């Protein structure tokens, strides 16, 4: 089955095993401002891909184009090897889970689940079997006769997920599906979605602005910023090797210490607070004497007793100590007023400093990354 999609194979090397391929997809609602600015993306069959980004970055817009509710202003959307850019939503065979569930209130749970099967003109017997299977899958056997309004939020969400999976769509889209749930239920549903993905292996594109969800669920995460993909990688790579300071700041907690570039490495040498000279892995090349920003995870910033204990150290004054059970969290200030965060494990091996005390914090060179351009305004 050779068709246009194969001929237009994207340079990134997408092939048939890719369930979804986006080529330079652009969306503009008003013709002037672009909300999605040329996204290239390939999703493997059976992959769990998360689109993570701050509010207004265009995540929903991208999903709406995938689902067929919005037309891309430019570019192509290829699903299952076919260009669907001009195909109406109901012909795309895509399951969708909405933030507000969107279960039909006038139908029972079983009727809701049967709906996509009826639309595919499946026989009554098979529909009943499948509905039973789906209820079993989300562990809600016996609730088929209820109306959505008679279910709890978590139960409704499960039915919404089951309804999106029951017709074995070639792609499942979820737009912040856990956004309406409280925190505890969220964790539970997260596990549930992970289990379903593991059991059934559907291709899922999942949208969220919760980085915890993104990291624990996904095979890969695409970090979205201002309508573009900032970085797309497995969660560990994203966390350990962010490609820019936006990603570094968006995924997990990070310290950002302004610095001045002295020399390029590896490792680069930088001046912090005018005095201390430290080294870090530099990600992008910038001229010497320009500003940069060093990013260090709080758990990699350690309290040291002597200058020589770690290759890089800075002097700080403790400004805040809070107790978190398994650890203490310290906020400390450099002498030019920049705050850094660190954690001290509550394992009895280290003493906890008092507020106002001067201490030394240090790090290994490979734990710090320097990004050109200083502290960007997009974060915090």
């Amino acid at each position, binding site marked *: 089955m050779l068709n246009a999609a194969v001929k237009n194979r994207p340079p990134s090397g997408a092939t048939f095993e890719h369930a979804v391929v986006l080529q330079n997809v652009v969306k503009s609602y008003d013709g002037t401002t672009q909300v999605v600015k040329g996204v290239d993306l390939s999703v493997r069959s059976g992959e769990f891909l998360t689109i993570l980004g701050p509010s207004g970055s265009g995540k929903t817009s991208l999903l709406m184009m995938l689902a067929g509710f919005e037309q891309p202003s430019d570019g192509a959307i290829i699903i299952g090897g076919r260009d669907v850019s001009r195909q109406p939503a109901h012909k795309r065979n895509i399951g969708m889970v909405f933030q507000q569930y969107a279960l039909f209130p006038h139908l029972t749970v079983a009727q809701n689940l049967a709906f*996509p099967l009826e639309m595919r003109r499946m026989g009554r017997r098979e529909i009943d079997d499948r509905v039973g299977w789906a209820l079993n899958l989300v562990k809600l056997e016996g609730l088929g006769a209820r109306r959505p309004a008679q279910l709890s939020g978590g139960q409704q969400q499960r039915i919404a997920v089951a309804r999106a999976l029951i017709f074995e769509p070639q792609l499942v889209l979820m737009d912040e599906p856990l956004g309406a749930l409280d925190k505890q239920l969220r964790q539970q549903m997260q596990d549930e979605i992970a289990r379903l993905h593991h059991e059934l292996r559907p291709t899922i594109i999942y949208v969220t602005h919760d980085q915890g969800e993104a990291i624990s669920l996904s095979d890969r995460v695409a970090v979205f910023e201002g309508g573009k993909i900032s970085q797309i990688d497995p969660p560990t790579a994203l966390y350990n090797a962010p490609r820019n300071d936006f990603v570094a700041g968006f995924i997990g907690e990070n310290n950002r210490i302004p610095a001045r570039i002295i020399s390029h490495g590896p490792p680069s040498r930088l001046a912090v607070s005018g005095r201390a000279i430290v080294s870090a892995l530099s990600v992008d090349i910038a001229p010497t004497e320009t500003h940069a920003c060093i990013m260090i995870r709080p758990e990699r910033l350690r309290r040291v007793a002597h200058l020589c204990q770690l290759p890089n150290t800075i002097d700080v004054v403790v400004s805040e100590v809070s107790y978190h059970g398994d650890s203490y969290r310290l906020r400390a200030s450099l002498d030019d007023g920049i705050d850094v965060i660190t954690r001290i494990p509550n394992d009895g091996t280290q003493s906890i400093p008092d507020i106002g005390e001067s201490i030394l914090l240090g790090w290994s060179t490979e734990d710090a990354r320097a990004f050109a351009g200083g502290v960007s305004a997009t974060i915090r």
Partner: protein
Amino acid sequence: MRQRSPHRTGWTLVLPLLVFTLVTFLAPIGFMLWKSVYDPEVAGLLGQTRQALAKWQTSTGLPGPEGFDALSRDLRDLTGDGRVSQLALRLNRERSGMRQLIEVTADAIAEYDRPLLEIDPRWGDPDTWVLLKRMTQPLTARYFLSAVDLQQTPQGSIVRQDESRRIYVYLFGRTILVASVVTAVCIILGYPFAYALATARPRMQRLLFFIVMLPFWTSLLVRTTAWIVLLQRRGVLNEILVAMNIVSERSRLELIYNLSGTLIVMTHVLLPFFVLPLYAVMKGIPKQYVRAGKSLGAGPVRVFLRIYLPMTLPGVLAGAALVFILSLGYYVTPALVGGRTGQLISNQIAFHVQTSLNWGLAAALGSILLVIVVVLTMLLSRVTQRGVL
């Protein structure tokens, strides 16, 4: 400090409205209901006759002499201050000829004090006495009987009204028919309109709102005049149709002062009552549902039939019920543009209240209308509560 029970507070808050409703609404309705079965007029005029006839069995022929005496005394007492003609008129409504009989008899008694049977042979007919006995009983079913074109024969059995006097059942039928047609047309015109209203952009929405609310903002007379200008034989619509050769000069359409006038104008006036509740329901349905339907594989038609329509059905029912119930009671519009064939039951009620002063009949007609509305409302709330929708 003891908390007041929320129950008590609730009652205190609704009390003023409750009292208001009681005084201005429930009491008049109660009065009307009472009026339709309680008619003490003749009993008040013929008090002695009433007592004398109380023990009389109508199956035994004529009443005893005490009945004749009592009536003579009553008529003598009534003579002189117009109450004879009041009685005569009232009885004549029940049976023609009674007016003349009563007046002649009263005159004769006043002048010569002769026995009744000598004054007029009809006093020897038991039917006359049966009528008197029935009319002197204040509690009566006769208004309800006439309201459904029935009457009680002198022998006491219930039969249909003479053919020439059967009008109310027909009028009730016409009223229900008109209400149904108006409701149906409102649904057909109003559903797409409400949808357009609910989905339009703000500027367009303001314009559409203006159009639908226009009948509310124009005074009744202006509106009616406008309809007359438009719909009459030489009106705008007919002129256009003739000019376009769609209808010929001689077959101009009769659109006003008949049933079609009533239908057209009532639909216009009642359309907002259908559109607005439906609009509110449509506005409350997030786009998500239609989108969910599409993503699950339903094309536009099936999304509409299986999802949108059922979800908007409560709005359709609410609007339709409102229009139907309001139509049942409509009376100004039919009176102004309905001509003879466009009159509804309410016009008859108004006639009996204002012109013929037959309040009992007006009350009985009104009560029947009320019962129809109450039954409909109960059916409707049953349907909606059962979650059929």
